[in-house]
């Protein structure tokens, strides 16, 4: 176990942690702040990844390509999808108990998976990163590191900063947080809470779709990919403390380190280490690391 090995593993941990935050960020908004248990979050992530796969050739053909153009078009579609879903389904769920939310969002998973199967098929697909991010940088004499992975990390950091700023430092963020504590009170103060929540929900969906689109070149695109990230997303939000962006970021990084080093040092227990971590943290702090006040 050399120093360079240790440093590279730290980089791996950091990178995985940031990727986790990226994937879980939308859930922080929808589950953490709006309080809706959204099992379909993984499906939105999958939709994003398939968008990256299916939209890129279309954009290439019509607009002459461009990685960011594709991302923008995907985001617009995602916001529209989120807006419609909130209007048609989720707006009826705020006052209901959690079991009904679980049932409906589970139903959505089945619908989205089946639609994916009909529209795109069941094959595994690769997505090429944009040429200017396709290279890799040498890392000591050990190995090379793909530039695209570093790009993902940068996107995560920007996103975390942006989310924290909007929620903690702007008037809009204040209204959103107030709404999560007391819907009726905010409404009675003359704020259109229904519209506000529709927008927040759409933003949550857009974040999940963005995560899928950004992660697609690194993770490839395959059936059921959303279900794999769903559980770990909930773990991130719960460890971090419901509704806290800071907590989610810290939790994601913590999981990144535990998972990476666990895989190498405690191979037999690699599958459970993250959940042991969650249990320990909840024993110590039942509300997670940072509970939003």
């Amino acid at each position, binding site marked *: 176990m050399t120093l360079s*090995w240790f440093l590279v593993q730290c980089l*791996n941990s950091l990178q*995985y942690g940031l990727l986790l935050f990226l994937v879980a960020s939308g859930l922080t908004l929808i589950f953490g702040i709006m309080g809706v248990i959204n099992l379909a979050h993984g499906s939105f992530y999958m939709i994003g990844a398939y968008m990256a796969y299916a939209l890129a050739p279309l954009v290439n053909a019509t607009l002459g390509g461009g990685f960011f153009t594709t991302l923008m078009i995907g985001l617009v579609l995602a916001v529209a999808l989120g807006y419609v879903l909130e209007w048609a389904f989720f707006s009826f769920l705020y006052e209901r108990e959690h079991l009904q939310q679980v049932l409906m969002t589970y139903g959505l998973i089945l619908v989205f998976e089946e639609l994916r199967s009909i529209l795109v098929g*069941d094959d*595994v697909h690769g997505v090429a990163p944009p040429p200017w991010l396709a290279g890799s940088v040498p890392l000591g004499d050990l*190995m*090379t590191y793909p530039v695209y992975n570093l790009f993902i990390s940068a996107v995560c950091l920007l996103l975390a900063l942006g989310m924290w700023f909007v929620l903690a430092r702007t008037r809009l963020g204040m209204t959103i947080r107030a709404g999560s504590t007391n819907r009726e009170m905010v409404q009675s103060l003359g704020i259109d809470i229904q519209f506000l929540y529709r927008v927040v929900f759409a933003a949550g969906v857009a974040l999940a779709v963005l995560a899928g689109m950004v992660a697609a070149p690194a993770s490839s695109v395959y059936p059921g990919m959303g279900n794999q990230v769903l559980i770990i997303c909930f773990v991130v939000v719960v460890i971090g403390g419901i509704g806290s962006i800071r907590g989610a970021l810290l939790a994601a990084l913590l999981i990144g380190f535990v*998972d*990476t080093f666990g*895989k190498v040092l405690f191979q037999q227990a690699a599958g459970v280490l993250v959940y042991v971590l969650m249990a320990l943290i909840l024993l110590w702090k039942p509300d997670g690391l940072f509970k939003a006040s």
Partner: protein
Amino acid sequence: MTLRTTLRQVALLGAASVALLCASATAQAPKLKVGLMLPYTGTFAALGVAIENGFRLYVGEQGGKLAGRELEFVKVDDESDPAKATDNVNKLIKRDNVDVIVGTVHSGVAMAMAKAAKDNGTLLIVPNAGADAVTGPMCANHIFRSSFSNWQPAYAMGEVAAKRGAKKAVTITWKYAAGDESVKGFREAFEKGGGQVVRELNLPFPNVEFQALLTEIASLKPDAVYTFFAGAGAVKFVKDYAAAGLKKTIPLYGAGFLTDGTLEAQGADADGLLTTLHYGDSLNTPRDNAFRLEYAKAYKLQPDVYAVQGYDAAQMLAIGLKAVNGDLGKKAEFAAAVEKAKIDSPRGAFTLGKNHNPVQDIYLRQVVGKENKVIGVASKQLADPGRGCRM
């Protein structure tokens, strides 16, 4: 899901009763009921369809009859879900009274099927699942396999790696039965050839975060890496291995599934990889060319290894049926005939070992363009040891 299954069952029931009426009216030999228990939804759906296509292709070539008996298919979607496997297979055996079961892809499901077949004495032909135990401790004189055991391609690759001069190898796979069996087979041959497996790396199924383990490989600096991954995991592993710069310095060897049905997604990162399997592209034998042409004509699709395995499952059934004149009650005669037969497979002719697993050539294949080009035979007429099989 349930509604569709119910509808399908109702439709099948209807078809079955009509068929029964017809049969009694013409007073012919009753139709042979073939239960196809395959994945028709989920990740392995395409594999299930390919197996059925292959099976039907052979039956079609025989004029729709095997040993003079017409066939009637009863289909069950096993969803590759081991939790539902026992229920599904019992439906076929007890409710539908099928004469023979063909299935399946997923090893966990296949194990439940083997158990039920053993308990009820039903004839079972496994057209894919490689779990060693199916032709090991679970073997029986009415259980056959037309595909491979996980041990086979792995053992062949162990021989190849040792012959190519590797001394130190690292293995990496998912921690589950197929991965464990594959690594065991590789280690057996590799260490027999004078090499040493210095570290067995694994991660929980179906986790695809390989970065930590790739760093571990880089620091261990082995002469070769052996891997067993399939599907999405195979795609990501091959891409990550190349992105980490390891492909240039440490040769990657894999069981054939690493590059089967995944080449389009893996792209250039898979170029040049060596894998072992009992089938490949451009075998270029008259038998295989004829098969590929017929298959492409019938289904407007190129066949793959799964189609071949389905095709051969039908061949094995036909050989046995012919020997007993269509009377499946004669199990011992059926088994004896299949054991003696040389099966004229598109992959190359093979026989069955004592444990009813194919004794077959395992090819060494290299990824060239978007093909798994056969570049030689890694291990000639390799027989699974059938450990734990007592018949």
